[in-house]
């Protein structure tokens, strides 16, 4: 573990050092590119100024993500249990993903105003799709061999679903979850850009319009951190739930 993280860590440190030295050497104005140390100082100094923004974004992201995951799983199961509906709806679902969320957002604001609802909707819209697609595939790709055994053993449709298809789809669901988690933070920030009182997105807009580039970087840093934290939580959950899987070394 320590060995594995050594290379990327030294790359990050190298990058930061190069950044710091060049901005000092060439005296780059801080409104164009602030140096890392300056950004770090700003992050500590104005913690009290942006803390509530951060908390607001975190709670928005997590609520949207949880609802999105729930809806995504529910839709996947529904589509799986109703193959005719799946045939009809699945292509529509894929097509809907060609609409960039950023163009949908103003529409949602027109329809639902500036409250929490349109913001949640944006996050839900970006979150549910990766899970639904991954899980529908996972449910469908159950090994025919195992289905065959279950049928011969007299398993009912419900038993085949709960004991075979659902557990089989869990690994795929997790690959969908990882994508959704990263999307959810992006969705939250975009939704805040459209109009909100609080949130990292708001903080970012304010900072950029007053040329406080250091604050923009602070915002970017926290967005990355939030993404990574969500990702880590999902990885941990995956590791715990899927401990039956052969480890990477064995399977490759």
């Amino acid at each position: 573990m320590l060995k594995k993280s050594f290379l990327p860590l030294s790359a990050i440190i190298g990058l930061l050092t190069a950044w710091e030295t060049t901005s000092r050497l060439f005296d780059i104005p801080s409104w164009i590119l602030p140096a890392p140390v300056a950004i770090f100082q700003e992050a500590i100094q104005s913690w009290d100024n942006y803390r509530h923004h951060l908390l607001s974004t975190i709670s928005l992201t997590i609520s949207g993500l949880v609802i999105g995951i729930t809806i995504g799983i529910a839709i996947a199961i529904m589509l799986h249990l109703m193959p005719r509906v799946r045939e009809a709806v699945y292509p529509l679902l894929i097509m809907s993903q060609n609409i960039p969320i950023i163009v949908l957002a103003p529409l949602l604001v027109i329809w639902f105003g500036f409250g929490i609802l349109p913001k949640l909707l944006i996050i839900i819209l970006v979150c549910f799709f990766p899970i639904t697609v991954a899980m529908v595939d996972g449910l469908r790709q159950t090994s025919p061999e195992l289905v065959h055994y279950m049928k011969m053993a007299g398993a009912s449709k419900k038993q085949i679903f709960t004991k075979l298809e659902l557990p089989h789809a869990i690994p795929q669901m997790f690959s969908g979850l990882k994508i959704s988690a990263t999307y959810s933070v992006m969705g939250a920030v975009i939704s805040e850009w459209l109009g909100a009182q609080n949130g990292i997105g708001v903080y970012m807009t304010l900072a950029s319009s007053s040329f406080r580039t250091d604050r923009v970087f602070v915002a970017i840093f926290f967005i990355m951190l939030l993404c990574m934290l969500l990702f880590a939580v999902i990885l941990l959950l995956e590791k715990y739930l899927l401990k039956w899987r052969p480890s990477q070394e064995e399977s490759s």
Partner: protein
Amino acid sequence: MSKLVLEQIEKGFDEQLILADLSFGVNDGEFVSLLGPSGSGKSTIFHLIGGLYQPDQGTIYLNGQDIVGKKGSISYMPQTPALLPWRTILDNVMLGAELAHQPDRNQAIHMLRRAGLAEYSNRYPHELSGGMKQRAAFVRSLLSPQPFICLDEPFSALDEFTRLEMQKWLLSIWEEERPSVLFVTHNIEEAIFLSDRIIVLGSKPAQVIKEFDITFNRPRTEDLTLTNEFLAIKKEIFQTLRGVLDD
């Protein structure tokens, strides 16, 4: 008691007749092998008995009851182990029982011990060798509530040494419990070593060509496979099968 009778079964897929006028039976506590060329329809027979397909004609009786189209009437072991990768071996062997009612955990542990899998009961299938997986799959079929057991080429994917070990192990368990078994194999020697009776099937469409009663005493040991009587029967069956293939 469990007794299986197939009466004048006919089954075709897309115009092609696979089984025609096929009749045979397995008596209570009897070990019967089906021997036939690849593609002759042996697995199809199991699928009919298992209720996965309906025969075009004929009836299947288990203990006098018509089981045509009834799933879950027999306990079944497929050619591949078909263990669920996310279940431990213990949870896997209880699956068959679990589908019908509450499984008996203690009995499962006891059977795993007898299969030499005690230390592996909390491992996952990918941690076991091919032979161990097959043993687990066999324990699962023994623990299933249905007394009649159908085994579809359970050892064909194993190497020669493991296969012999598995045959001896299977016999030792079977000789204690004496369930009725219908066993499918390509391997003549395996069929003779294990069975009370061998049914040779012809192909396209499959029908019973000849039956052989194997009367060697039990318990059987592997020395049996080297005796003249054994070789004589092997030769006879081989010639019957060759006749089937030449047609």
